[in-house]
């Protein structure tokens, strides 16, 4: 019995056989997921590679981590299951009782105590983990692989507890042991760790563990990542120490996130984004914002979900779905079967709700892993999210420690805000000031798309008139300059449609580009040309690029915006911008080469 119906699966269903063999029974946590056998496969893959293997951390110690996290979360189901598992591995009744009360009385070695202390801190409040915590582990002779295993074991413990809260399975065994379980209060040390962090003291940054280089060539499963992300995020690279675990994780992603037969990919990415934001995980926020952009969601909408999905343009049903996931992901103790019933009232099927639970659990797994390993960002999170996060006051932090989700709608404090507000009230001088500030950006966007000066200047006039007409609709969710670029793009595209040489600005398959010029360049290539000759040469080269590359090179290298800003302004994913930028730059290199190589010296005409 659980919150979800159970379906009878074939006796030969692989994951069930595996558990039957390893444990002698199939846990109710798995029975509760039979509506979607593929998610059971995902979980069993993770459990087999993380939990049921001897590694740098012995199995019995991993089970102690599971039990301690379950106790910390007051998760009755997992406490019962994990106690039984420890018992079967030979742990004494006294030790199990001590773990259920206070692990410090469990007569463990100093290293085991240090490990549990670390895992509990990571489980309780991942954002406060720093290099100091890693140093404490190293002081107890933990090497990279053991640190990695401690982190991933904690992540799996959280995955299991999130599932158990969301599925409500019956305990696998009688609950008599639970009667004696007392929840350990937060230890003084851990509390201090939290409060010092709440005031924003500098923390050691990751990555905490050194890993070997692993390319898509050497490790076939990376091909899946390459396909869905467009590149290999640090999140996956950082786990190269254990390709077997990485493979199980990628399989879990493949089983849980990729299929679209229940929830859509966009819905799942929204869940991942909203829950990551509530967990204050800026790495995962940046990643899911980017993936959503790749799936066609405008970047302002993604940013808004990261800050507060209630204010986003999602349907009421999808907002309720995110409420459900955020509550489960951050306040699992308050979660109950009633939440499942409430979500059904919005028209979601049992399968969809079950999948939402599993996606939330996977999200918490990933959030924990990222923070425990201190994985470095691939790109910046949306500025508005960071701003809100940084500006959290001590009181807000307390709320988060207590499990509250972050839902702050802060005003965007950028330099334009005051002028924008005045312009929106009809103040023409304020509008003129804004226009003058951003005229270069607008012009460069226009000339990049249109390809000639005269058209760009005409379109500029249209852009400014249109901007004033619609300024009331600007809601401050993005930067004002981003909004202006979108108006400029629309004006330019409209104009293009009337022209014959219409080139699409959309994705299109970027053909393979091979560098051809292989002659070395002179040391100081600029010296033979005047400034204006150089400029002519560059402008001519840029005008010769295909429009897709031209716009990206213009905004990144000429206007000198960051790659993330270019992506936002053009509504592209960061990897797409990176690809176009590199191609554009390499084409420019080909164009400039004859003028700057050591042997041939051309002229700038």
């Amino acid at each position, binding site marked *: 019995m659980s919150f979800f119906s159970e379906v009878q699966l074939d006796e030969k269903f692989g994951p069930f056989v595996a558990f039957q063999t390893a444990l002698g029974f199939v846990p109710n946590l798995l029975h509760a997921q039979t509506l979607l056998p593929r998610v059971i496969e995902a979980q069993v893959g993770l459990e087999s590679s993380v939990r049921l293997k001897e590694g740098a951390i012995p199995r019995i110690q991993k089970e102690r981590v599971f039990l301690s996290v379950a106790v910390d979360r007051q998760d009755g189901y997992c406490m019962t299951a994990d106690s039984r598992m420890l018992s079967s591995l030979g742990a004494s009744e006294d030790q199990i009782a001590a773990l259920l009360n206070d692990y410090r009385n469990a007569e463990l070695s100093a290293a085991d105590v240090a490990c549990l202390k670390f895992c509990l801190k990571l489980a309780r409040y991942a954002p406060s983990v720093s290099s100091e915590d890693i140093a404490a582990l190293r002081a107890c002779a933990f090497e990279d692989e053991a640190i990695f295993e401690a982190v991933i074991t904690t992540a799996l413990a959280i995955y299991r507890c999130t599932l158990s809260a969301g599925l409500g399975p019956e305990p696998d065994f009688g609950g008599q042991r639970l009667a004696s379980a007392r929840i350990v209060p937060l230890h003084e040390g851990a509390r201090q760790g939290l409060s010092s962090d709440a005031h924003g003291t500098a923390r050691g940054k990751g*990555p905490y563990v*050194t*890993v*070997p*280089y692993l*390319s*898509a*060539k050497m490790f076939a499963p990376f091909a899946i990542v390459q396909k869905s992300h467009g*590149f290999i995020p*640090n999140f996956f*690279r950082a786990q190269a120490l254990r390709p077997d675990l990485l493979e199980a994780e990628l399989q879990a992603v493949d089983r849980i996130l990729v299929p679209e037969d229940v929830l859509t990919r966009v819905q799942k990415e929204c869940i991942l984004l909203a829950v990551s934001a509530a967990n204050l995980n800026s790495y995962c926020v940046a990643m899911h914002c980017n993936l959503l952009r790749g799936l066609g969601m405008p970047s302002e909408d993604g940013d808004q979900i990261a800050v507060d999905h209630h204010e986003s343009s999602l349907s009421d049903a999808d907002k309720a779905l995110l409420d459900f996931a955020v509550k489960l992901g951050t306040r699992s103790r308050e979660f109950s079967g009633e939440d499942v019933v409430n979500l059904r009232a919005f028209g979601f099927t049992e399968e969809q709700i079950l999948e939402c639970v599993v996606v939330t659990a996977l999200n918490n797994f990933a959030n924990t892993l990222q923070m425990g390993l201190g994985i*470095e960002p*691939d790109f910046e999170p949306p500025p508005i999210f960071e701003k809100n996060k940084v500006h959290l006051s001590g009181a807000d932090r307390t709320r988060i420690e207590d499990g509250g989700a972050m839902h702050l709608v802060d005003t965007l404090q950028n330099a334009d805000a005051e002028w924008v507000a005045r312009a929106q009230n*009809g103040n*023409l001088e304020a*509008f*003129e000031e804004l*226009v*003058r500030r951003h*005229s*270069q950006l607008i*012009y*460069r966007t226009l*000339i990049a798309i249109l390809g000639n000066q005269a058209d760009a*200047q005409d379109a*500029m*006039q249209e852009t*400014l*008139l249109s901007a*004033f007409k619609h300024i009331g609709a600007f809601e401050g969710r993005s930067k004002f300059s981003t909004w202006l670029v979108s108006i400029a793009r629309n004006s330019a595209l409209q104009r293009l449609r009337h022209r014959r040489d219409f080139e699409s600005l959309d994705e299109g398959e970027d053909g393979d580009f091979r*560098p051809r*010029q*292989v*002659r*070395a*360049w002179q040391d100081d*290539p*600029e010296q033979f040309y005047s*400034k204006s000759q*150089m*400029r002519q*040469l*560059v*402008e001519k080269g*840029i005008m010769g690029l295909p429009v897709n590359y031209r716009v990206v*090179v*213009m905004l990144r*290298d*000429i206007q000198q915006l960051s*790659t993330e800003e270019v992506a936002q302004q053009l509504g592209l994913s960061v990897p797409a911008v*990176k*690809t176009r*930028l*590199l191609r554009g*730059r*390499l084409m*420019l*290199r080909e164009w*400039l080469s004859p003028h*700057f190589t050591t042997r041939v010296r051309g002229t700038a005409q």
Partner: protein
Amino acid sequence: MITCEEFLAEFGDYLENQVSPEVRKELELHLSQCHACRVLCDSSRKTIKIVTESSSFELPGSVSDPIIDRVMAKLRTDRS
């Protein structure tokens, strides 16, 4: 050692200084042993420098002012 193809796959991030220390080490090892990639890398860096310092497509005030003035004049007339 990594191949030229693998080098090219990371090259964009390398130019942007966005690779991890481990990847950087691999790439630089490759660069130290591959003349073609070394030329490509050197000339690409020079290209970026030339392009970013070229002040291309600057719209001089003599061109932008009349445009902005025309727009503002139109907005003021529309209002009255």
